[in-house]
């Protein structure tokens, strides 16, 4: 069914493309929101990805790879969007901690705010990797192909991303009186 729609859309059938876009847009919106944490940015990224998908669809060689291709376009659009807005946010540099965790980040006490704070501290490329694997449920070989990186690189980047998130959660778990009092030292 989807293959038929893709082939029709490749031939310029806009109704077929509308059907494809309609089926995909919620999933893309969710992924873009997770990567960017910004509603307008996510809308722009999804729009850019879908417009480009329509524009370049005739060049797609294998209709069965439409989903993977659109995911790739979305990731590129999100990374571009993140880079455009990067200057407006404060970058926080983190290093992975080799020391034992103060709090166990895998335990049930990890709350959503902590996860969000940890996630926000990741670079867009790392967020993309986590979203593709843990939100869209793509297997790592597909994630690697989507991001255009070797499988080994995808594995090591995912490991590093999760390590950075755990480090962020550990850092949050430490009490810093200066921050607790609302002061930046």
């Amino acid at each position, binding site marked *: 069914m989807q293959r038929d729609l893709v082939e029709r859309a*490749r031939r*310029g059938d*806009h109704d077929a*493309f*509308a059907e494809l*876009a*309609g089926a995909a*847009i*919620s999933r893309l*919106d*969710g*992924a*873009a*929101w*997770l990567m960017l944490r910004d*509603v307008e940015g*996510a*809308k722009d990224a*999804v*729009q850019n990805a*879908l*417009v480009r998908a*329509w*524009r*370049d*669809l*005739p*060049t797609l*060689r*294998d209709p069965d*790879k439409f989903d993977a291709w659109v995911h790739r376009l979305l990731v*590129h659009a999100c990374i*571009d969007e993140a880079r455009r807005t990067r200057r407006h946010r404060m970058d926080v540099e983190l290093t992975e901690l080799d020391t034992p965790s103060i709090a*166990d*980040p*895998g*335990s*049930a006490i*990890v709350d*959503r705010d902590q*996860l*969000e704070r940890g*996630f926000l501290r990741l670079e867009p490329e790392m967020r993309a990797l*986590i*979203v593709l694997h*843990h*939100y869209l449920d793509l297997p790592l*070989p*597909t994630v*690697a*192909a989507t991001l*255009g*990186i*070797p*499988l*080994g690189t995808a594995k090591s980047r995912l490991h590093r991303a*999760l390590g950075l*998130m*755990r480090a962020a959660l550990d850092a949050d778990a430490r009490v810093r009186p200066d921050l607790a009092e609302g002061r930046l030292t």
Partner: protein
Amino acid sequence: MTTNDRFERAMSSWLREDAPFRVSDHLEEVLEVTRVTRQRPAWSSLERWLPVDTTFRPRFFNVPQPGRLALLAGLILLLLALAIVAIGSRQQRLPEPFGLARNGIFVTSRDGDIYAVDPATSQNAPLVLGDGFDFSPIFSRDGTKIVFLRSDGPLAEPAILTMMVANADGSGLHPVTPPTQNLDWFDWSPDGAQIAYMAKGKLWVADVDGGAPRNLGGVIGAHFPTWLPPDGKEIVYRLEATNPEIRAIRSDGTGAHAISVTRANNQYDFGSLGVSPDGLTVTFTRWSSVGVPDVDTAGWWPRVYALDVKTGQEMQFPTAEGTGQRGAVAYSPDGTLVAYARIYRAGAFQIVVADADGSGNERTLGPKKPGPADGNHVDAGWAFTPDGTALLVRFGNDDAGAVHLLPLDGSPESILLDTGGFEFVDVQRLAP
């Protein structure tokens, strides 16, 4: 369950709960934009240009950022150089259509206009400005003319295009076809008098000096029409079908016959045609699971073959163990070398130069770049320079890219042009 498992489960759960309902429905906004956005023709993918001997297709070049005065001075110098070339071309002998030649200027397009680019300085100068949206300029094999496509208005879908021809200095502009729907893939005849092209899957030949184009032999489903060297008596093409074939037809529309002998294993077989300068061999890429190694994630690995035009015998180019190959093959001007992409299982590709006779002697050139492990998408285009001393490779996609000059003698590579908005690029051949 380990700590890591619990952490990843907590994160997956959070992602799923956090994602929905954050972004308002904007499907209609997207569709409003796509309704008025033209689609790129299928042939505008990199692969379309690879088989052409001196043609490659960087989409974005970076114009250096000199001051305005320096830029103006450069443009004046380039225009003078073009004028000298134009005057000189009337006095100097022309290169043979195939074989070694001297490197000339680049021709390219940007924002619907045609430009000449000096490869030594990356300075550009307009060749054809004004009316219409012009793109895809290609030099004739003797380097004296260019052909390109023109849309008279905004590019709609399906595109209605006119094929235009001009002298290398931009003068003498005239159409060689009427406005044509789905005009696609064109190739200069060796003598520069005709241009073969396809439109709506049919094969056509236009005379450069005028007259109505003629349809060849009622062929339906032709693709990659390419004049067969050295005399161009026949045009080779891929017959698009469930079981595609490589076929040839005389330029008068008679004598259509199959060149390929084996049956295609799937609809992708016999893709990405390349023709040797002596016209004895047609290369193609076979996308098949038969007789080639499988790859973990995709099942298929492409391989490059050479087809003997006279006997129909196929030869598979050897490759390193654990790697695949991807055309389109570019032949060196003297026909002794071929260049194609090597596909690595780990998800990467690299440009390879090998002996054209299939005896091996592969050597990689330039950097290894990321790419799908099944070779489905190779983000590069490549061609030998007319003088045969180097390979021009354009790495990158629409967002970023650069043209690398990779000397065959092992000298360090250099980047000729970096990102910047120019599209199709072709290199002029000059007499040695």
